[in-house]
């Protein structure tokens, strides 16, 4: 019985992960991150990876909303900030523990998603982008007007920790990241996501196909809000301070850079983008004067040579699409692993 299960898991593992080089690389990277605390106790490095895990969830939630559904928001920090503040306030003012404040923060972000979907139902394109840009600014204004409650410019500090030890926190964040991004990936490959894709392509046609686009647009805002909110609450408990910077316009713009750099409409692309760019920016602190310039240069040069994002570029290099069944194969294969069609001569993905 046990042997059978083990063999089945191994077979699935071979078929689903080892068969495709990009998945193998992602899997290896995940294992490496899990083993990292065993080989180093560099607190700075662990802290960077843990923070990157939070931002990875945040960036993937952006992809769900903007990449998949085409709702180009410029105010994604709304979700992050509102969740961070909610978690912080509940923790500090009511003494609620992290396992309650984190979902509560996410819930607040879902409500914010509901709020943000209102302009999205009415205006489209650049008009919606501008409206969304205003939302976090309005919230920030509210925070500054009630400094007694929200800490104003100073923010809130003294939020309780996620776990007793550094390593504990590291694993908590890393595993949360795995679970949440896998969930998003499941959503992104589901039937519902097909409708999200279609709404991005042509909303009127989706309506005339008999789909209630209002419902699905609200749904995607709430979904994206939930995941971004989880990231925001985790951030509050990990940094233990929450300030207006969580709502800053930079938070909204950074996620766009991460997402496009990693490759949109993939979920894992923005995650990869965060894990490359965030540590890069942190380690560039050794040369503070040149930091932003070098960072911008790297981003621009990368996008010049891989405009579709780094993860899609690697996929194109390492894998080929079967012309018949459209399954992906490792680039060395001469015939498709699913339908045995000859793929030796055909072009690469994309």
């Amino acid at each position, binding site marked *: 019985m046990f042997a059978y299960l083990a063999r089945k898991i191994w077979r699935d593992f071979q078929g689903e992960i080892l068969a495709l080089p990009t998945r193998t690389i992602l899997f290896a990277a995940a294992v490496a991150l899990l083993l990292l605390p065993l080989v180093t106790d560099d607190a700075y490095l662990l802290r960077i990876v843990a923070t990157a895990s939070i931002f990875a969830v945040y960036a993937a939630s952006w992809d769900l909303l903007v990449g998949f559904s085409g709702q180009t928001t410029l105010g994604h920090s709304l979700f992050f900030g509102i969740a961070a503040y909610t978690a912080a306030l509940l923790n500090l003012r009511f003494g609620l523990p992290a396992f309650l404040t984190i979902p509560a923060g996410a819930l607040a972000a879902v409500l914010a998603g509901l709020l943000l979907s209102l302009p999205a139902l009415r205006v489209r394109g650049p008009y919606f982008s501008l409206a969304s840009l205003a939302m976090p600014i309005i919230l920030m204004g509210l925070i500054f007007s009630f400094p007694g409650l929200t800490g104003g410019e100073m923010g809130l500090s003294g939020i309780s920790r996620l776990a007793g030890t550094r390593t504990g926190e590291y694993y908590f964040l890393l595993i949360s990241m795995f679970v949440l991004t896998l969930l998003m990936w499941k959503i992104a490959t589901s*039937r519902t996501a*097909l*409708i999200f*894709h*279609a709404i991005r*392509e*042509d909303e*009127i*046609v*989706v*309506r*005339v*196909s*008999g*789909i*209630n*686009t*209002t419902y699905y647009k609200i749904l995607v805002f709430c979904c994206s809000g939930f995941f971004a909110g989880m990231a925001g609450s985790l951030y509050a408990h990990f940094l233990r301070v929450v300030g207006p910077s969580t709502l800053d316009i930079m938070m909204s713009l950074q996620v766009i850079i991460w997402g496009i750099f990693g490759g949109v409409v993939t979920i894992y692309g923005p995650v990869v983008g965060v894990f490359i760019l965030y540590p890069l920016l942190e380690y560039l602190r050794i040369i503070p004067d040149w930091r932003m310039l070098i960072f911008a240069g790297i981003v621009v040069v990368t996008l010049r040579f891989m405009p579709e994002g780094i993860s899609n570029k690697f996929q194109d290099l390492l894998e080929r699409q079967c012309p*018949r*069944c*459209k399954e992906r194969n490792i680039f060395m294969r001469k015939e498709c692993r699913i339908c045995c069609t000859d793929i030796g001569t055909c072009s690469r993905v994309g």
Partner: protein
Amino acid sequence: MAEDFLQVERLCKRFGGLHAVRDVSFSVGRHEMVGLIGPNGAGKTTLVRLLLGILRADSGRVLFRGQNLLGKKPWEIVSQGLALTFQNARPFARLPVIANVMVSCLSPRASKRGEWVKKIESRAMDALEFAGIADMAREPASCLSQGDLKRLEVARAIACEPDLLILDEPFGGLSPTETGLMAKSLRRLHKGGRFGRLHSEGPAMIIIEHKLSELMKIVDRVIVINFGELLAVGTPEEIVANPQVIEAYIGKEVD
């Protein structure tokens, strides 16, 4: 009877100063195949967009099985049993052809009616087979030729399982042979029956078309509009002999 199925009463729509549709009234029976013709810019596309709720009418009534459709959302109207193909094919370009059709299959009406075919992939495939582009199912829709895009439009619309199918220039961009084939398929669909696993009760149809010779062969009745107004209604024979219609198409003789 006709009155119970689709009844359009004094429908009006203005774009600024332009009366795109003015006081148009007509009705369509449950088992009818109706042609809707008129010169370019006559307001045919606008008229069917009003029926589907894509545009909001200024005044008038549209009764479908006794229920007013005006003011309803397009998806509610599609749930009632209408479906539309667009004049300029509007595919979800970056999605595979089959995904274009699966979106319709996911609509509440389609998923309820085809319950006995479990997988929506198979249902989408049936619609593609009917339209004759099943072999392109996994290609992205941006790869399709103009003619195949028209077929995709038809596949997407019939996947909604309509009782009244409205086709806006379904023969546009098709070669004469393809036009003949498409006309024949539409006629067959209208009669109803089984097409693979697809079971159809035979939708009523409104077909907008400029290729009059093909159209006249397959429709039971023709509605002519010009400058947004109803010009004539009658059998194909009556319409081709109607001097007003000829004038609208060819223009008035100057003497």
